């Protein structure tokens, strides 16, 4: 079992992961679904259902424990959070900041939406556990958004600054 997604009640974890961790993240997602229902809010086109299905060995009873919704713009990301109730189901938000780097949306609007999101994260963290993943910002992405989110999380876990060993991808 991968300890990448260690979801605990009444706490929200911010995971800073480079793209190369995507397979591992989705495998961990499939493993979480083995234990019970899971809500996935995909805000960064991260969720690959075929990859999750492979990680769950194609077993529909596990795959269908995962309820997915996707957001393609930052407004939708906030709407998804707004509509998600606090309950007994753990929540995983994937690639959260990706839509916030959209330069078509004015910075003051993005900041406003981020503040709304943080309030929702605090609300949702009162349930069965919340993990939010983001990728490390590239030099041209706004560092403010990253820092603001980072400063509001209960726990921040940063991965991939240096790889300790080469990783073999799972065949199945």
């Amino acid at each position: 079992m991968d300890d990448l997604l260690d979801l605990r009640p009444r706490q929200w974890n911010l995971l800073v992961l480079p793209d190369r961790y995507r397979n591992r993240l989705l495998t961990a997602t499939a493993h979480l679904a083995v234990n019970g229902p899971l809500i996935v809010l995909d805000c960064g086109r991260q969720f690959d259902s075929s990859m999750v299905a492979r990680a769950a060995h194609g077993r529909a009873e596990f795959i269908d424990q995962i309820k997915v919704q996707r957001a393609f713009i930052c407004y939708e990301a906030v709407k998804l959070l707004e509509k998600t109730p606090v309950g007994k189901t753990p929540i995983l938000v994937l690639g959260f900041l990706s839509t916030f780097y959209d330069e078509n949306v004015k910075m003051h609007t993005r900041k406003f939406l981020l503040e709304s999101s943080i309030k929702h994260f605090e609300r949702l963290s009162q349930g069965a556990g919340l993990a939010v993943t983001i990728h490390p910002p590239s030099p041209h992405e706004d560092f403010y958004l990253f820092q603001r989110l980072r400063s509001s999380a209960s726990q921040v876990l940063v991965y991939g600054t240096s790889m300790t060993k080469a990783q073999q991808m799972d065949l199945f």
Partner: protein
Amino acid sequence: MNQYSGWLLDIYSHTERGVVLWLLCDDGQRRRFRQDFPVTFYAAGPSERLRGLWKFLERQPLRMELSRDERRDLFSGSTIVLAATIESPCALPPLFQMLTRYFPDLIFYNADLHVALRYAAIYKTFPLARCHVLADEQDAIHQIKVLDSKWDIDHEQPPLRVLTIEPDADPFHNKPGKIHLRSQKNNMTLDLEKETPLLGLLGYLLKQDDPDLIITTYGDTWLLPLLLNLSEKRDHPLPFNRDPDGQVSYRKERSYFAYNQVIYRGQQVHLTGRLHLDIRNTVMYGDYGVDGVLEMARVTSLPIQTVARVSPGTGISAMQIVTALENEILVPLRKEQVERTKTASELFHDDMGGTVYDPIIGLHEDVAEVDFFSMYPSIMVRFNISPETVGTEKKTFETAAGLTSVVKREELGLIPQTLAPLLEKRFDLKSRVLSMSKFDCRYKNYKAQAAAHKWLLVTCFGYLGYKNARFGRIEAHEAVTAYGREVLLRAKEAAEDLGFRVLHLYVDGMWVQKPGSRAAQDFQPLLDEIKARTSLPIALDGIYKWVAFLSSRWNKKIAVPNRYFGVFQNGEIKTRGIETRRHDTPAFIRETQMQILEALAKASDAKELKDRLPEIRRLIREKQTALHSGHIPLEKFIVHQTVSRKLEDFKSPSPVSTALEQLESAGKSLRPGQSVRLVYTLGMPRARAWDVGTSLDPRRVNIPRYRRLLSRAVDTVLDPLTGGGRSWLTQVEQLVLDL
């Protein structure tokens, strides 16, 4: 009151109130009219925030009428809104910018719409519409009536006066010295260095000819800014604007990410009272020319100068906005609906895209290509797929196999309502084109119109799923592909039931073969059967004398969808996915591959292909000799590549980053989305920017690299023809290996 009739050239906001309209009147005059045209925008949200907005708007120094209203949101139905009406449409954009800053939590409707679209929704106007106008002595319009329809095919053509201005060189490559001007009456060349006569003669020409349409080359990005700066510096006004009160407006250049690629739009220069098109900054100009631009403007209702410079997606969005306004549906800034919750399996099943059936690799004779007519738009219209009709609770009619959402049928959706007349017009145009001679004077215009429609229809499907679409919804996007998959499978079953062999399926097209079937009428029963089983229009694209489906370059056993070349019975060559179609293929390689195909096209059937080999062998030898002896012009080695990122974002050196670096040193820069021209060179650096400014020593061209590219292009078109034995191509193969 005076009455006028003519063609509506342009419409834009007046600087104080209402709108300005320009009419090309039947008496030959170009008249400017004014009309009061108040515009209304709406806001929805919590009552206390709407009260706050009301107070905020009351404090603004604008004449504004505020009211509480109930309007229809496409998704949530009847919605309580604050309605604000202002007399001056041009005051709305700055006001709205302020509102989004102070009220980011409110939903705004009809707040950022082009005034031409608002006007079109009320008066049914469109660019170059025939209009009848009743105006007072001050040229204020009291009544306007449109006399034709945007859906007419043989509409009366306006007598546009055209002036073309073209520099004698590409300004990015070399500094131009002269500009050539051509109009119906005049033809002259002006020296850019001699500023006084340049400004004098150009000003005279603009006044004398009074063109309606100025077509330039590099006008947006270089020529007009240069001339206008010069006119200001010399205090010699150039009447580019016909409107004496109008301003030349500039739109900044920008790069953005769409359709999985970086797209660049250059700076734009818009005129008032006349139109300016820069052919280098006009989207799809190469595909459909000025006729296509004018048709785009007609069907989308966007002003001609705007539509020429925006993507077809913006065009389809404009059409949807007009439909919404006509139906009194609120137009949001962006979609407010989120995707419904799906299980991971549902997501997997719904999000599958189109059907592709890998081709059977190799050479095939007497193959028919049948295509559904604008398949995805036809599906949207036939099955009423629209963001508000998909995903309803009640199952009311058939659903496509594998579709977990259901589609509401009772009321025609916004998208089908928008697309139906466009589809009908395109169908009519295509039928006319098929039955007319290429020498008919209408042929070129019809083809251009059909090409413009094609791009709108191609985009309308993507726009359903596009993140920034106002009326998009991912479930609707998925529903279209689900129907598409079902339809194609039904077509395949029909073909197999009638004894055809299906060689390839690709989203909306099918390649079939049956011994003895080689005439159009042999395939008619199949078309009839497919239409009966799918209820969608389908047509025979053509019958190939022979067609070759290609394998992967890396593994000859793996077929590559939509990568083929073939020759139709009328001798027309069709290629997809090979070097001739790629933008990054140097002209020398593209021409050689095309010449080989032309030589092969002379064969009346596949068996005669071998007779073409001596000619091909000669051709390759000539090219090889020319390459080694330096007889290929340097321009033909140019490789065009799209800049995908800023120079500082390149992590490792590549030909593009090398070329960008060289350009930067020469004081020239390119933005992501622009095309960089380079030549592969020997030694370090491995590439040289073509536009760097100094001439390239021919001895530095990396001939071995171009030889490899040539060899690959020759392989592409000769490999599938060798079949299993490869005996009849031995000599050519040897030659290719020699290369």
